[in-house]
């Protein structure tokens, strides 16, 4: 059996493991950052993949089922990180964890983003906590010499989390806000058209977190012939592809609309194949 660092068996790439919380801190008004010590799992994880987390606070309280959480930070020698929007019982239990507490994870799961080494630049369009899913892509792109331009959409400047997004990747950030109207669809459309028509036209586009922005990006990327990928979210049962509760409608290459599992065939899908929700 081929064993990786800390005994991760290549034959069994998905592990159920109890990890120790290294850091647990609030970010802004409604987000929370969770870093876990997981050398083997973090090195084995890829941007766009997710973990299924058993959301139990320090007292062992939390919902019965696990919650899928996309990877925010991962890589060789780095802690495994999640950036969560605290909005329900599961995320509240996770936010109640403290450094030194334990957390059971299952993963890494799902199909992540793909980067073509021939690409020179990509554009990322993220809204809200969707930026957590897209954040590790910036560092993966930087490592391959691919320039990243990111349009980050938020309610107001204090919700932006630009530093949480770009880390050390050097991504060029264009923030847009509801509070000043710059995130409205017509303004966004003008911004994207200018980018797609200019000298810094991206070789690929990526998005997560907003149905409205997804539809806009799908339409414009289709019009300009730019390939794209989208990370979809869905309520899950098992997270492994066994229960078929997390399906979404996807347009197959032959034009037929089929139900695919977000946990197994996704969560990353071709931008043009995904249907609105």
């Amino acid at each position, binding site marked *: 059996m081929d064993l990786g660092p800390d005994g991760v068996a290549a*034959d*069994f*790439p*998905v*592990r*159920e493991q109890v990890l120790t919380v290294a850091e647990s801190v609030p970010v802004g008004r409604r987000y929370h950052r969770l870093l876990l010590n997981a050398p083997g799992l973090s090195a084995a994880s890829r941007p766009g993949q997710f973990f299924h987390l*058993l959301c139990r606070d320090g007292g062992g309280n939390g*919902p*019965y*089922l*696990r919650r899928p959480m996309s990877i925010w930070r991962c890589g060789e020698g780095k802690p495994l990180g999640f950036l969560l929007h605290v909005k329900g019982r599961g995320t509240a239990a996770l936010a109640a964890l403290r450094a030194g507490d334990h957390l*059971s994870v*299952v993963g890494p799961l799902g199909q992540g983003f793909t980067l073509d080494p021939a690409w020179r630049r990509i554009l990322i369009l993220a809204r809200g906590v969707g930026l957590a899913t897209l954040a590790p892509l910036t560092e993966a792109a930087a490592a391959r010499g691919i320039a990243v331009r990111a349009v980050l959409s938020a309610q107001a400047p204090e919700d932006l989390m630009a530093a949480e997004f770009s880390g050390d990747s050097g991504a060029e950030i264009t923030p847009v806000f509801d509070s000043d109207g710059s995130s409205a669809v017509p303004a966004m459309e003008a911004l994207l058209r200018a980018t797609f028509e200019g000298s810094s036209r991206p070789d690929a586009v990526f998005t997560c977190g907003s149905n409205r922005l997804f539809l806009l990006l799908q339409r414009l990327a289709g019009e300009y012939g730019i390939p794209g990928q989208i990370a979809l979210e869905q*309520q899950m*049962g*098992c*997270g*492994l*592809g*066994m*229960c*078929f*509760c997390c*399906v979404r409608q996807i347009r197959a290459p032959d034009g037929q609309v089929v*139900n695919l599992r977000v946990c*197994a065939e996704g969560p990353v899908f071709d931008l043009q194949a995904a249907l609105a929700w």
Partner: protein
Amino acid sequence: MVDLAVRIGGMTLANPVMPASGTFGPELAQVFDLNRLGALVTKSVTPQYREGNALPRLCETEAGVLNSIGIPGKGLPHFIEHAMPDWRRFAAPLVVSLSADTVAAFAEAAALLAATPGVAGIEANISCPNLEEDGRAFAMHPETAGAAIAAMRAACGLPIWAKLSPNTADIAAVARAVEAAGADAVVVANTILGLAIDIDRMAPKLGAGMGGFSGPAFKPIALRLVWQCAQAVRIPVIGVGGIATAEDAVEFLMAGASAIQVGTASFVSPNALLDVLDGLSAFCARRGFARVSDLTGLALPGRLRPAAE
């Protein structure tokens, strides 16, 4: 060394631990070696393509889940052609869960499976809606349950396990009917009908309305059903319903089960099947049981059910 082997009708399983249909797939091989299991049980396969039910298909409760997935699938011919090669990678015996709308469709499908290499047995999911009976499940009544099993028995020589429904007034009568019809074992039990309502939307939480309830909160009911069936029939009982730990499994064996299935627990812990298996072996070793089959029926009244078949 504890002898973990159990006999289920004509089949000898290396151990009594297997997955429950609908909560398992080859995907779990990403987590552990599936050949450690006593048997593999597929999601239910239907003769023809099924779209599946409207979303949401699953909702959690305090100690379990309601599901109404709707058996989505591409149909039996597609399963035989495309899924079976994947299943044949595994050495553990493969039991194909089969669901159909009519007695004739059950029989035709059973014959097709009997002609398919690599199928060790059929779990007849007679707990699904029966179009001939106005949507009621075959397993709600002894007559319809017996008719479905008898038709399958006549159509194929494979071992047939009848998966019974808790949604019936007299499960012992249903168990006796499928035994008389030629079933090799009964699997007790499928999910129990339940409901959850979203009070903000003022509508059922599940897209389909009602759903099947499973998980830890269902365990006492499933255990009682196993206990009743074990006293009603001579064929082996396979216990399923809320089993999450080795201690749960021991309870089912003592209530009369010869083997057990782990279902919903695998959603919370993908390692649950292995943990139950290892814990069962440790329990037998600790308590001096040389054979896991010695546990079967120990808690039945007057120990009606001898350990050996």
